[in-house]
Structures are given as C-alpha cells and as structure tokens.
C-alpha cells in the first residue's frame, strides 16, 4: 500500500486524515478548555485560629478595642457658648486638667454684684456699729444720772429703744454680709462649673466641639459627646461571645486577637473579666432599623503594651477577631 500522490484517494486517505487531525484538534481544544475549578488560597490573609488552637476546642468572637477606663464621654453641667478648648485629640491629660471652658461673663457679673453687696454690707455694719456705739453711750449717760428730775422717764425709754434698734441694725447688716458672701461663693462655684476638667488621667480620643459653639446640658448636636477620652494605657478589647457558645468558653485563659485587615498580626491578650450582664448583641452595621434577638456575653481582655500606643496596630474603636480556648469538657 505505497502512498503515491497520483493515486491519493480523497475518500480513502484524505478524509480519514482530516478526521484524525480533527479529532486531535478537538481533543486538544476540549482538554484545554476545561473550566478552572482549582481551589486557590485567598489573596489576603483571613483571620485564622492560632496554631495552638487549630485543632482544639475553641470559641471565636468579634469585638471592639476600648480604653481600659472604658470610653468617657465628657458632658457639661451648664449650657452656654464655648470660649476655649484646651486639648486636642491624641493629647494625654492628667486628672483635673482643663478641657474646655464655657462663657462665664454672666456669672462673673453676678460675682461682682455679690462682691459689691459684700462691700455694701461691710459699710452697713460699720455704720450700724457706730450708731450702736452712740446709742449705747447715750443710754449709759442717761442711766448714770441719779436725779430723777434731771432726766425724764420718757427720755430714758427713748434712749433704751435707740440702743436696741442700733443692735438690731448691726445684726441685720451682718446677716446681709453673710448673704452677699454666700452669693459670691455660689457665683464662684458656678464659674468653677463652667470650666470642664478631666475626670481621670488619660488620652483625648475625640473633640467634637469648637470655640464659639453652644453646648447644652442635653448633649451636643447629633447626640455626639463633646469630648471623648479614656485611659489607653493599657487598652482593652471587649469580645462578644454568642450566648450559645458562652458556656464553652474557658474564662481566665488568654485570647488571641487580631485586628480587621491585618489578620496575620495576632497578639495574646490577657483575661481581665467577663461582664456579669449578658446583653443583646450591639450591631456593628450602624443601621438604625436593626433589631436583635441574639444575646452576647462580653468578655474583656487586656492588650499587651507593645501592640498599642502610637506605633501599635490596635486603636480604640477598631474591630477585632478573637479566638479563645474552650473549656476542656471531654
């Protein structure tokens, strides 16, 4: 069966050849066209259980970083215009340091009024004292006269009356002084209340008021607190644990915590306490219409100092993922 170009038959040689080549091409196309269903590793590191817990019983939760003092939302006792803000976000303040002041002109005017009243009362006391002295000397003079014909009985009664009236006026003047002093002290207290001071030592986390704004005792606009602060050395994380998982958790064991978006940077956080009250899960979606039916146990852990602060990876308010060992039951 020698192949000869002239006797090449379409049906016997070319057609089978086309079929074979077509089959090979088709096989190649089919095999190369199979869909890519390989599993691939995620591009970015998802939060993983720590090595030690990989195949152990464990409880997972998510939570939020908070100051160890919890978040202190500074309020104002009195309303008025802000005349000065003396702190900036990120600043560390000591206890009692002035945070901001509210307009005190009216109270200072009241203080000046009270001080003028004090001066007036003092002058009144001096006047009353001299009147009393005159009256008592007059009375003593009349009493020292033994001759009843020289001084009439009515003269004596008048002198006695004047002396006692002068004493009463002195008491009244003293009482006025006390009242004015009390008014001055109350004005000073008001002035003190118009200066808002740090209740604890800590870090200023947010300042939502500016000079010239009006603060009311009902809270700021949009129900924002005026100033938020807290003790950020050390920092805590508040981990929400589903109530169904709560009985399994090994309280007292350290938790492995990683911030959202940096799951590979896991740190060990030491146990602080579990909140005694199981609360409805606070949703992190910020949706006002959200209702909840899930309750969570909140467990507090302390972050190591190396992971917090200016160079640390944890910031107040950040969301974290946490893994906690479960109680060994079996």
């Amino acid at each position, binding site marked *: *069966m020698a192949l000869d170009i002239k006797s090449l*038959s379409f*049906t*016997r040689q070319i*057609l*089978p050849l*086309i*079929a*074979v080549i*077509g*089959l090979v091409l*088709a096989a190649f*196309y*089919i*095999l190369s*066209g*199979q*869909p*890519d*269903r*390989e*599993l*691939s*590793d*995620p*591009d*970015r*590191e*998802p*939060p*993983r*259980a720590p090595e030690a*817990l*990989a*195949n*152990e019983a*464990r*409880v*997972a939760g*998510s939570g939020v970083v908070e100051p160890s003092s919890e978040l202190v939302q500074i309020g104002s006792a009195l309303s008025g215009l802000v005349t000065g803000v003396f702190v900036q976000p990120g600043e560390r303040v000591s206890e009692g340091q002035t945070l901001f002041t509210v307009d005190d002109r009216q109270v200072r005017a009241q203080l000046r009024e009270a001080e003028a009243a004090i001066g007036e009362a003092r002058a009144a006391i001096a006047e009353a004292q001299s009147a009393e002295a005159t009256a008592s000397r007059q009375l003593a003079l009349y009493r020292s006269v033994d001759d009843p014909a020289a001084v009439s009985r009515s003269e004596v009664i008048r002198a006695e009356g004047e002396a006692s009236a002068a004493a009463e006026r002195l008491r009244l003047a003293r009482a006025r002084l006390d009242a004015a002093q009390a008014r001055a002290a109350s004005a000073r207290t008001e002035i003190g209340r118009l200066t808002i001071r740090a209740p604890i030592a800590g870090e200023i986390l947010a300042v939502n008021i500016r000079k010239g704004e009006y603060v009311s005792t009902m809270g700021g606009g949009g129900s924002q607190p005026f100033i938020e602060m807290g003790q950020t050395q050390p920092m805590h994380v508040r981990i*929400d*644990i*589903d109530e*169904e*998982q709560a009985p399994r958790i090994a309280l007292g064991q350290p938790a492995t915590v990683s911030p*959202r*978006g940096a*799951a590979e940077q896991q740190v060990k956080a030491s146990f602080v306490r579990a909140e005694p009250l199981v609360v409805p*899960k606070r*949703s992190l*979606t910020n*949706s006002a*219409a*959200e209702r*909840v039916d*899930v309750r*969570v146990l909140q467990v507090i852990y302390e972050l190591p100092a190396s992971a917090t602060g200016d160079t640390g990876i944890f910031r107040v308010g950040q969301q974290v*993922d946490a*893994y906690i060992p*479960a109680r060994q039951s079996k």
Partner: protein
Amino acid sequence: MIWIAIRMLTGDAQKFFGLVFGIAFSTLLITQQLTIFVNLLERGASGVYNVSSADIWVMDPVSRTTDVAYAMPSTALDKVRGVPGVEWAVPHIRANASVRTKDGDLEGVAVIGVDDATLIGLPKNMVEGSADVLSRPDSVIIDDVGTTRMFPDQSPIGERLELNDQRAVIRGIADAIPSFTSTVVLYTKYSNALNYVPGTRNRLSFVLVGAEDPAAAKTLSERIERETGLKAQTREEFARDGVQFIIDNTGIPLNFGITVALGFIVGVAIVGLTFSLFIRDNIKQFGALKAIGVTNGKIRRMVAAQAGLVGLIGYGLGVLGTVGFISAFSSDPTFKGFYIPWQIPIISLVAVALILGLTGWLALRSVLKTEPAAVFR
C-alpha cells in the same frame, strides 16, 4: 484483505458519504446537545464555582442554593470560627435588589457582599480594574455578562447606580460565570452590601470556610453541622445542590434528553439503513470472497474495518463540528464559560460504537448466511 474492504466501502461514494453523514450528524447532535445541557445545568453551580477559595459553605438549614438562601444572625460567623479544623471563616451576603440606572430603568440585580478585610468571595479574575477598588467608598464590581446587559456598547467603569437610595459607582469588571438566569451581579464589600440591600433582621447569607485540611472537607462539614446546628456543604456538594435545583425546577433535562435520544435514533436509522443497503448491494462480492475461501471470521473483520472507518471519519467530523460550534459562540455572553466536558465525546463515541455495532451486526447476519453460490445468481 482489509484494504479490499475499504475499497469496497468507498467504491460507492454516495453510500459512503451517506454513512459518514449519518454518523457525523448523530455525533454532532448528541455531543452538542449534551454539552449545552451540561453547561446549562452547571449554570446552577456557577455561584459556587465563582468563589475559588472556599472549601465549605455554611448556611441556614433551610437554604438550598446560592440564590435560594435564608439569612442567619451575624453570630453564626463566630460559631463557625469556633469549630476545630476551621482554618478561617468569612461572612458572605447574597441578596437581590433593584437598581435604578441612569436612564431611569429598573433592573433586578444580585448584590454579593464579600468579606471587607480579605475580599474572599470575589471571582478569581478581573476583566478590568483590580479587586482593590472595593476599598474606595461606594464601589461595586459588575460581572462581565451583566455589563453587556446593562451597558451595551459602552464601558460601565465610573457609571453611577442607585441602590436602595444609596450611591454605587462601578469601578471594576469581574470575570465570572453567569448564573442560570444571567442576573446582573454587583460585587461589593459586606458592609456596603448591608446598605444596598433593604434591611431585614438577619443579613448573613453564608459563611465561607477554609478547612485546615482541604482533603478532609467532608468530615469538617459534618462536624460544623453537629456543633453549630447549621447546614454545611462542601464546595462540590453545594455545586451539586445548585444543579439539582435546576433539574427539579425546570424542564431542561426532559427537553435535552429527547433531543439526545432523537440524535441516537436518527443515527441508527440513517446508518442502519444505508449500511444494510450497502452490504446487500455487495452481497455478490462477499459471495465471491467466500467462494475463494475467505472465512466468516475474515468477513467479520472486513465489515468491522468498514464500520471502523465510517465511524472514525463520521465521529471525527461530528466532534469537530461541536468544537467549531462552541468556539464560534464562545464570545457570545449567553455562552460565556461554556466548555465541552471530556466525558461527553466519550459518551458520543460509545453511542457511535453502539450504532455501528448494532447495524453492522444486523447487516452481517445476511452475509454470513450467504452461500458462495450467490455470486452466480
């Protein structure tokens, strides 16, 4: 001797081409229809296959497929994370929403919210842009088939949409296999998706899980079911659920089954008729061969060779036709992601072998009974 058989076969070009056409046609019909059938069914699993990194899908016990899902409370994520053997778990939301386009048209879209931090849940590849655009505010990524439906003949990048009164800006195009209904898909971050989809109490549709040991995903999914009370399906199981949902709820299997059967019947009819006609025409030649002492076994081999050649050419052309069909339409968005599973050409090969075997055996019966004297009749 085999060569004589081949010459005998190709001697009558009409019958030969009739045979080849019959085989090629039924191969084409069976292969092509089965391919479209399988690909249509697998559209039900495209939602699962588009997520390339999840070993296990965890969902509410009543959820059935990626599109028929009942939402869970958000703490389900932490429950799943607490199961030993789970390497990681991320939230995943799938929901339907209505979008208002710039023209004022209303279009139903599927909003898929992927984990904010890791973006697990996005398709593996992007047509335009990168997955990182989701970190910009109000970003969504549209799928490529959705692009052709919502923005024919223009680039969707930078287009603004209105979803649940919120602004959404398209900043990327994902390379994804469309779903069965070819709904436009918008991928966004989980936190954005919560705003884009009108609120219900629970929002979390799925928890995607990566197993410590992907090979043992089945045991892990059983453990997740046991410990959390949720339903956990491995990737393959969940893909099958999606396919099963289409089988249960549409007439597709019946329709395509009928077409495939028709292909088989047409093949048997054409090839069977032509082949037996051809054998009968050549009965004299077979008689002569017998007369010069060719055994029945040899004749069987000759007929087998004839059938083999017809089968080879017909099957080759039929498969080539299917490949040509699929590759010609591969740029059409309706056929996006269509492929020929390697099992299907094998199934049609078996069908061709059956057709030829059946008709060859029927035709041979008369030849084997032929007496050498037939040559003189």
